[in-house]
């Protein structure tokens, strides 16, 4: 027999207790992983709005609760265009509409047709819309396939019926599930003449991105430039809230898991004091007792974490099907999620088991054996 055999044996001897403890850990990990996937997917989705345009960075209004509420004026765009290090800048308006129950958040992106290529949009079928057309639209190839619409067909979005002039591809899932139409048309529909959601800026080769960003932010203090995920919170407060909720939820889940583990480990410490005394008396070192106690907790945590990840996988799948989240929640399970789950399980073990283990090891053998 080795230590692992003994650990397994001890856990099997208290099956119900081990399972319940593992369940507490599993629920903790389930919560943590689900929140993590949800947050990172939302961040990823938000970010892919920005990445849709092939730009060095984006510009939006600072401090709005949701990126979609950002308003950037034509005059701001003109100013940015005049900066010496700026190669090009385009402005787009983004609006969401409800297409049907399966597409509650269908994106309409207003882009001037002459900027499409620069924006990274490739027309793969048909032709682009013309700049003044009020009833022409292009669909991303994924959206077109999903909706079963072809070039020459039509689509109705909230009372407006458009003729589909072309199908495009952006190389971004997010863009490819959206639609595009002339900027001025969308501005008129949304009653936001001269207003845009985002600017996409490309700088001249060799120019310093950070310098250009600083200049824009000092010239136009109502705007913020965004390049990375962490910049994103400045133009989308909701994301900051979601991130904070994720952190808070994770800490709570961690505490719940750790308390579950601690409860079981302390219980076993009191019940098995005599047993630890016997082991010490026949030559087990303190460290071996610590290893036994922590090992038992770690084994439960590990199994619990594995169950938690599996449960989380199911939970995320379910969430992705929620009508309210269709289109904005594209779950991405990365290897990082699993490491995180393992890390949290290890943390639960440490928080829950170290103290009981230390107490069990500190007892002198005779004193422990006299314990009733």
């Amino acid at each position: 027999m080795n230590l692992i055999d003994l650990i397994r044996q001890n856990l099997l001897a208290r099956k119900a207790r081990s399972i319940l403890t593992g369940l507490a850990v599993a629920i903790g990990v389930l919560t943590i992983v689900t929140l993590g996937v949800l947050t990172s997917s939302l961040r990823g989705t938000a970010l892919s709005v920005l990445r849709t345009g092939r730009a060095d960075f984006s510009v939006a209004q600072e401090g709005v609760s949701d990126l979609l509420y950002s308003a950037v004026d034509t005059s701001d765009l003109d100013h940015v265009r005049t900066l010496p290090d700026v190669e090009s800048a385009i402005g787009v308006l983004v609006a969401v509409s409800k297409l049907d129950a399966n597409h509650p958040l269908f994106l309409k992106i207003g882009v001037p047709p002459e900027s499409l290529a620069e924006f990274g949009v490739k027309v793969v079928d048909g032709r682009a819309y013309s700049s003044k057309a009020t009833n022409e639209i292009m669909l991303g190839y994924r959206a077109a396939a999903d909706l079963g619409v072809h070039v020459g067909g039509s689509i109705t979005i909230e009372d407006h019926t458009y003729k589909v002039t072309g199908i495009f591809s952006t190389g971004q899932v997010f863009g490819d599930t959206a639609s595009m139409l002339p900027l001025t048309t969308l501005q008129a529909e949304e009653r936001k003449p001269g207003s845009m959601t985002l600017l996409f800026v490309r700088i001249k080769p060799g120019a310093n991105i950070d310098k250009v960003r600083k200049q824009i932010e000092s010239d136009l203090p109502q705007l913020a430039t965004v390049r990375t995920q962490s910049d994103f919170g400045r133009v989308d407060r909701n994301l900051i809230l979601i991130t904070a909720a994720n952190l808070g939820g994770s800490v709570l889940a961690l505490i719940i898991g750790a308390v579950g583990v601690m409860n079981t480990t302390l219980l076993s410490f009191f019940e098995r004091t005599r047993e630890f005394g016997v082991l010490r008396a026949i030559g087990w070192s303190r460290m071996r007792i610590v290893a036994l106690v922590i090992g038992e907790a770690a084994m439960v945590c590990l199994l619990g974490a594995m169950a938690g990840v599996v449960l989380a996988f199911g939970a995320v799948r379910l969430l992705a099907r929620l009508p309210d989240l269709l289109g904005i929640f594209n779950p991405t399970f990365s290897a990082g999620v699993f490491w995180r789950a393992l890390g949290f399980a290890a943390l639960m073990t440490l928080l829950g088991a170290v103290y009981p283990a230390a107490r069990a090891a500190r007892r002198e053998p005779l004193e422990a054996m006299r314990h009733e």
Partner: protein
Amino acid sequence: MSEPDIVVKVLVKDFDHGRIHALTGLDMEVAQGEFVAVTGPSGCGKSTLIHLLAALDEPTHGTIAVHGQPLPSQPRQLDHYRRHAVGLVFQLHNLLPNLSALQNVEIAMIGTGVARRAQRKRAQQLLDEVGLSGRTTSRPAELSGGERQRVAIARALANNPPLLLADEPTGSLDSEASTGVLAFLQSLRIEHNMTILMVTHDPRAAAAADRTIRLRDGRIDTEAVEVLT
């Protein structure tokens, strides 16, 4: 007689901040390979003596030397001493309730570097020798008191200690089983030249030993020794 294996000098052990005197100046020598019975009325300090020899407790005064060395005080040396220098059978609460008889013997070998198969073989052989070959998978709760003590003896011998300290190993055995265990202890002495210190209340068990030490009020009852020798 060969080298003394255990040398105890004016051993004093108090409990409760000096209010209880368990050992009161005990002098004793046990030769290498000797089988000694320790008897005496309840509370005279027999278990206390065993615990001190097993390095589970420290004396209040006096010295103990085992195998020619004073008892260690460093944690690592203590663990090593308890594991390899002595085999210990307690009066009570010996076994781990969730483990089988076989596993209860094996736990003594966890971490000693003995391979699992060799551990199993050794445990099986020891249980065989104490007459429990048929009960290897039984848990302590399924064993009689005497059978439990025999598992404990097997465990005490797992790491081949040169000294066996047994507190009432035949305490709850019927006379047939008791005879078996005593014969086994004698064979250990004869075949392995083990030193054995056995606490017992049973005069017949004591008779199986080479010599009996009688304790009274925490020291050797000299009159009794004279009577017996």
